[in-house]
């Protein structure tokens, strides 16, 4: 666990630093990586960028789930509700002539707006009841959406508006959009956690009851995170429909999305920004090598998730930080002797 301490209480022997130089290097490093990644469509074939688009989508979703579970202790099995809302918002706007790429920000806003009233409903449920309650909400969204014949009903429909675009350029554009959304998701997470609310969230992560009794507005912080996470998942859903050029309701509202988010965040490490990045890399490698084994692949994935949850509750990145004291995106206070 990172030690958090108010600056005023530090004794002369202990120096307290937070976020300054190491964070600057972390951000500069991240910016360089993003710029390098942005040149990839000129360098490699489209199958590589397509693979990365999927990885970026998973990274966004897992980061949002990590924000919920890793910091607020909110285990949601229903984030696919917002993945679906994101995809269908892009579909509706595209059907009315909006460029699908420009529709992505709208999907984020719409989903965030929907999450506000939903949060009042699902926040009445505790722990495991919250988990299944969010799932019911996702199922309800799914069952409502398939009633609209114009949105493809239960069979799905194609995304209009991109038929005349050159495929190579379209794939590059999708890649850049996915890269931008992933970078934005990580940046928003970083800024949220470095802000005053980040302190609140870290306190809630470490001990919710102690945080509440110290005057942290726990429910408010959780609601903000829930809405941010819904908005982020909608961006992921919007990217999905833009990259696949079609949407099938049962696939986009599948609880499998939540399973993937859980697996990636868990294996990488809950409660850190770096965890989902590590988790996405590992998941993508496992998926590429083992996905042809079908059910056995999922059995392996489930078993690994169970073992990690029980024996490495802070995931692989948690082991790395506790062994080597590395942080790429430091948001806590650090004590130096």
């Amino acid at each position, binding site marked *: 666990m990172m030690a958090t301490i108010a600056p005023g209480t530090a004794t002369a022997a202990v120096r307290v630093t937070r976020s300054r130089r190491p964070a600057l290097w972390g951000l500069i490093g991240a910016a360089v990586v993003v710029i390098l990644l942005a040149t990839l469509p000129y360098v490699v074939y489209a199958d590589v960028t397509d693979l990365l688009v999927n990885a970026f989508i998973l990274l966004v979703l897992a980061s949002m789930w990590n924000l919920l*579970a890793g910091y607020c*202790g909110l*285990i949601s*099995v229903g984030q696919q509700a917002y993945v679906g809302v994101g995809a269908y918002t892009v579909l509706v706007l595209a059907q009315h002539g909006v460029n699908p790429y420009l529709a992505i920000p709208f999907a984020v806003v719409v989903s965030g707006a929907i999450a506000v009233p939903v949060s009042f*409903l*699902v926040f*009445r*449920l505790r*722990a*495991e*009841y919250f*988990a*299944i*309650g969010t*799932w*019911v*909400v996702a*199922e*309800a969204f799914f*069952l*409502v959406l398939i*009633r609209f014949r114009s949105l493809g009903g239960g069979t799905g429909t194609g995304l209009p508006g991109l038929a005349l675009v050159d495929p190579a350029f379209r794939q590059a554009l999708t890649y850049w959009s996915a890269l931008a959304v992933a970078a934005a998701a990580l940046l928003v997470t970083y800024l949220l956690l470095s802000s005053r609310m980040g302190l609140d969230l870290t306190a809630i992560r470490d001990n919710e009851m102690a945080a509440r009794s110290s005057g942290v507005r726990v429910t408010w912080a959780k609601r903000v995170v829930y809405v941010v996470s819904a908005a982020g998942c909608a961006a992921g859903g919007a990217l999905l429909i833009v990259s696949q050029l079609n949407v099938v309701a049962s696939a986009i509202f599948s*609880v499998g999305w939540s*399973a993937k988010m*859980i697996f990636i965040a*868990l294996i990488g490490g809950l409660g850190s920004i770096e965890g989902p990045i590590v988790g996405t890399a590992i998941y993508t490698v496992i998926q590429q090598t083992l996905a042809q084994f079908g*059910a*056995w692949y*999922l*059995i392996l*994935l*489930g*078993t690994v*998730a*169970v073992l990690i*949850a*029980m024996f490495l*509750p802070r995931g692989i990145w948690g082991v790395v930080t506790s062994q080597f004291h590395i942080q790429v995106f430091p948001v806590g206070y650090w004590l130096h002797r």
Partner: protein
Amino acid sequence: MNWANAIVQGILLGGLYALFAVFGYGVQRLIIQKSLEVSPLTTLLVTFGLSVVIQNLLLVAASADSHSFDLGSLISASMRVTPELSIGYVPLLIFVTAVVVLSGLQLFLSRTAMGRAIRASADDQEASSIAGVDTRHVFGIAAAIAFATVALAGLALGSSSSFDPSAGPARLIFAFEAVIIGGVGSLWGTLAGGVILGVAQAVGAQIDPSGGVLAGHLVFLAVLALRPQGLIRARLAT
């Protein structure tokens, strides 16, 4: 089916439930207890992971094909109450079973020493340990009862409709909705919640053939919005 045959079948079924109970006790003691000690959230993640594993093991063993039990003529047999209304024997038998099981559980929880230990451990694990309750064993027994009851419910599901390896999650959602509608921690509330959910689904399907499940979800969300404590406020622990 003659009586001797029925009794033999019943004994074999009892063996199945006992097997599930032992399985439940083992899973609780070996896996879930360990995860409970890490954190309550870990339990949720571990059981979710287990459900993925079990579902896919079933997929490997039994394929994705839909199955149903062959109940012969019993499956369509029904008694005609009025010219408009007839009640199937299988659904009626399942309903009676549910009432008997819930009554038994209610009596067990309120009248026996183990029932009292389960309620106490659910209320406050540390305080019950101090009072001399072996909470790990108690949780194991509770899991054994839960697994055996779910096995019974699984057989009931299989005799009333077709099923496949992915049939579980939808039932889990319905069961959860019944619990919340009825009120967490109240067994009779769960029965009432189940009946309300069933009626909502049936009436919804009457209004629109594809709207049954959605109607159930909407009733659940309405209860959550208007009466979050459920119909019956719990006297048992939450």
